[in-house]
C-alpha cells in the first residue's frame, strides 16, 4: 500500500482514515459530551437541591432535562461504544483496518456538527434568544409538534445528522466483521465484544431509520400540513409513542449490548478462567436483540391500550429478563472459584454486574403493568434507567478504557488515582441514584423543577451525590492526562495472560497493525 505524505496538525485528524485515530476521536468526543451533558445534570440537581424555584425557570429546566438526555444517549454513550468498536474490532479479528475507512471518517465528523447544532440551541436559549427543545428526550407529540418551540427544527436536523452517522458506523462494523476476519477466525471464535457489536449494529440498521422516520413525520406535521400525529386532521399522538418506542426500546439495548461484550472480555482475564458459557452468551445476546422488538409498549402502559395488549407486552418484557439472567449467571460462574485479582478494570466490571442487576430488577418491577401504572413518570423510572445506563453502560466504558488504555498509550495508568476514581464514583453514584427509588415510590414525578416538601430531604442528598459524582469524573481526566503523558511502560500483554489478538501486538499499538493477517488456530 502506498502512503501519501501524512498531513499534520488539525488536518491529520480531519482527514484521517485510520481506525485507531478515528477510534480515539470518537472516545474523546464522547468524553467531552459526557462533561457537557454532566454539566446540565449539575444544573438540574442544583435546582432540585431545595424545594421551590431558585436557579432556573421551569422552561429552562425542561430544556436542561431534554438536552441532558439527548446528549448523554446520542453523544456520550453511543459514540463511546463506536469508538471502542473502531479501536478494538480490527485488532480483535486480525484486520488491518475497518472495511470502509473513508466512510468511517465521515461518520465521525458528522457528530460534532449534529451536537454543535443542539448546543447552539441551548446557548441561544441561555442568551434569551428563544427556547431550546424542551419536550424531553422522548419528544412526544404534540409537545414537539403543535407546542414545540421554533428550535425544534434544529433538533430535527441534529437527529437526522446523528442518525446518518450511526447508520454509517453500523454498516462499517457489519461489513468489517463479516468480511475482514483473519483466516481461521470463525464466527463462534469471535471475541464476545465483536459478537455483541455485530448484533448491536444490526439493531442500529433496523431502528435508526425508524427514528429518522419519526422526526421526518414531525417535520411534516410542523410545516407541511400533514397530520400524522395531530388528531385535528385524523392523526393520532399515541401513534407517535408507538413509533418512538419501536425505536426506543431496541435503542436501550444498543446502549447495553456492547457493554455485555466488554464485561464478558474483562472478567475472564482477572478471574483467570475462560468465560463460562460462551455459546450461551452469543445466543442470549441474539435473543435479547430479537425480543427487544416486541416489548416497546411497556413504555406505554398508561396510554389506554386494551387489556390483551398490556398483557402481551408485560409477558414479553418479563421474558427478556431470562436471557439477561443467563448473562449475569455466566459472569458470576466465570468468577466462581477463579483466582481473582481486583485491578481497576475488574473493579468497574464487578460493580457493573451488581449495579446493572439492580437496574434490571427495577426494570422487572416496571414491567408489571398494574405496578407500572403507579410508577410511570416518577423518579422510580429515573432510578431504573440511570442504574442500567450510568452504572451499566458508562461503568462498562470506564472498565474498557482502563483495560485497554495501556494498549492505546503504551503506558500504565496511575493505579492509586484510578482506584480513587472508582471508589469515589461507586459511592457517589449510589448516593445519587438509590434514593430516587424511594422518592419515586413516594410518587415524585420526573421532569419537574419543584416538588412537594416531603421530598426535600431525599432530594438534598441526591443532589449531594450528584455533585460528588460529577466531581469524581474529573479524577478520570487527571488519570487520562497522566497516562497519555507518560508512566510505567506497558508490556504487550499488559495484564496476566489476557486472551485476544490485541495483546499480540506491541504497546502502544502501532498505527498500522495486521497488514499481514494473523492465523487463528
Amino acid at each position, binding site marked *: 500500500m502506498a502512503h501519501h505524505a501524512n498531513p499534520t496538525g488539525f488536518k491529520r485528524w480531519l482527514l484521517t482514515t485510520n481506525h485507531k485515530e478515528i477510534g480515539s476521536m470518537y472516545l474523546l468526543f464522547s468524553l467531552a459530551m459526557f462533561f457537557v451533558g454532566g454539566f446540565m445534570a449539575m444544573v438540574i440537581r442544583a435546582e432540585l437541591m431545595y424545594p421551590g424555584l431558585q436557579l432556573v425557570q421551569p422552561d429552562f429546566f425542561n430544556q436542561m432535562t431534554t438536552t441532558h438526555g439527548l446528549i448523554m444517549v446520542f453523544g456520550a454513550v453511543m459514540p463511546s461504544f463506536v469508538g471502542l468498536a473502531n479501536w478494538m474490532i480490527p485488532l480483535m479479528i486480525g484486520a488491518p483496518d475497518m472495511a470502509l475507512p473513508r466512510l468511517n471518517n465521515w461518520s465521525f465528523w458528522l457528530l460534532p456538527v449534529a451536537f454543535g447544532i443542539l448546543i447552539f440551541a441551548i446557548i441561544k436559549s441561555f442568551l434569551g434568544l428563544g427556547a431550546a427543545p424542551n419536550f424531553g428526550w422522548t419528544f412526544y407529540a404534540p409537545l414537539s409538534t403543535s407546542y414545540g418551540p421554533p428550535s425544534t427544527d434544529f433538533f430535527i436536523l441534529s437527529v437526522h445528522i446523528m442518525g446518518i452517522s450511526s447508520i454509517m458506523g453500523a454498516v462499517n462494523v457489519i461489513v468489517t466483521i463479516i468480511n475482514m476476519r483473519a483466516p481461521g477466525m470463525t464466527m463462534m471464535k469471535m471475541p464476545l465484544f465483536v459478537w455483541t457489536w455485530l448484533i448491536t449494529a444490526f439493531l442500529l440498521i433496523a431502528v*435508526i*431509520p425508524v427514528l429518522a422516520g419519526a422526526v421526518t413525520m414531525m417535520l411534516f406535521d410542523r410545516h407541511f400540513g400533514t397530520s400524522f400525529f395531530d388528531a385535528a386532521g385524523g392523526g*393520532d399522538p399515541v*401513534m407517535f409513542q408507538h413509533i418512538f418506542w419501536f425505536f426506543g426500546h431496541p435503542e436501550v439495548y444498543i446502549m447495553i449490548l456492547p457493554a455485555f461484550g466488554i464485561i464478558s472480555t474483562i472478567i475472564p482475564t482477572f478471574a483467570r478462567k475462560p468465560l463460562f458459557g460462551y455459546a450461551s452468551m452469543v445466543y442470549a445476546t441474539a435473543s435479547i436483540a430479537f425480543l427487544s422488538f416486541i416489548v416497546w409498549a411497556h413504555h406505554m402502559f398508561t396510554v389506554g391500550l386494551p387489556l390483551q395488549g398490556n398483557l402481551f407486552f408485560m409477558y414479553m418484557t418479563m421474558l427478556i429478563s431470562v436471557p439477561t439472567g443467563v448473562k449475569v449467571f455466566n459472569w458470576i460462574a466465570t468468577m466462581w472459584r477463579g483466582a481473582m485479582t481486583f485491578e481497576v478494570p475488574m473493579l468497574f466490571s464487578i460493580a457493573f454486574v451488581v449495579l446493572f442487576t439492580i437496574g434490571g430488577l427495577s426494570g422487572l418491577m416496571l414491567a408489571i403493568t398494574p405496578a407500572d401504572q403507579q410508577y410511570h413518570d416518577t423518579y422510580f423510572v429515573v432510578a431504573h434507567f440511570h442504574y442500567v445506563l450510568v452504572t451499566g453502560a458508562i461503568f462498562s466504558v470506564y472498565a474498557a478504557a482502563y483495560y485497554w488504555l495501556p494498549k492505546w498509550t503504551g503506558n500504565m495508568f496511575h493505579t492509586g488515582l484510578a482506584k480513587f476514581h472508582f471508589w469515589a464514583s461507586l459511592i457517589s453514584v449510589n448516593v445519587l441514584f438509590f434514593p430516587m427509588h424511594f422518592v419515586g415510590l413516594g410518587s415524585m414525578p420526573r421532569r419537574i423543577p419543584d416538588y412537594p416538601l416531603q421530598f426535600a430531604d431525599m432530594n438534598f442528598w441526591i443532589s449531594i451525590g450528584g455533585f460528588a459524582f460529577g466531581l469524581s469524573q474529573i479524577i478520570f481526566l487527571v488519570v487520562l492526562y497522566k497516562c497519555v503523558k507518560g508512566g510505567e511502560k506497558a508490556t504487550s500483554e499488559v495484564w496476566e495472560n489476557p486472551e485476544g489478538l490485541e495483546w499480540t501486538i506491541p504497546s502502544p499499538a502501532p498505527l498500522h497493525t495486521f497488514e499481514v493477517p494473523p492465523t487463528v488456530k
Partner: protein
Amino acid sequence: MDNTLQQKNTKLIWTLIAVVIGMFAFATLIMPPLYDAFCDWTGLNGKVELKSAAAPEVKSDNPYLVSTETAEAQAALDETAPAIAAREVRVQFIAKADRSIPWDFKPVNNSINVVPGKASNIQFEVTNLTKTGMTGRAVPSVTPAQATPYLRKMECFCFQEQHLEAGQTKLMPLQFYFTEELPEDIKEVTLSYTLYNMEKKNGSTN
C-alpha cells in the same frame, strides 16, 4: 484490497442500505395507514364501523350510525317496553374545544344513568365565541375502549361538520344506546368529544 473482497463488501453494503430504506419506508409510509386500519378493525379509536355499510341495521348514508328500523333499535326507543337488563351504567360526557377553534363546547348534562338496551338522548351546547363564521367538527372517543363494540349511535353531531355564525349558539343532539351484551364489569363509560377547526386544516392521513 483484492477484487473479491471489494465485491463482497459492495454487495453487503447495498443489502444493508436496502434494509435502512425499507425501515424508513416502514415507519413513514406503511405504519400510519396500518395503524389506522388496526384501530378501525379493533374499534380502539372509539368508532366502530358497523359490519358492512350495506347491512340493514346500518344507516345507508353513514356507516357509523345504526338504522332506527331494526327490532333492537325499536325496542330501545320504545319507552313502554320493559328493559331486560336490570342494571344501570353511568355515562359521563366530556366536551372540549381544541385550541384551534375558540368555541365554547359543553354537554348539557355531565352524566346520566342508562339501562343497556334503552336509548337515551342528550344535548351538547356549542357557541362560536369569535367574530366570524367558522366550521368545526367533533371527534368522538370512548373510554374504556372495551365498551365501543356495544355502543350504538342513532344520531350524533360528531359525524357532520358544524357551521356556526359569529356568536351563534346551537344545541347538538346525541342519541345512543348500549346493547344488552355490554359486559357486566363495565359500570361506567365516558364519551368524549373534541371539537376541531375544519377551516384551515384539511390534510389528513386517513
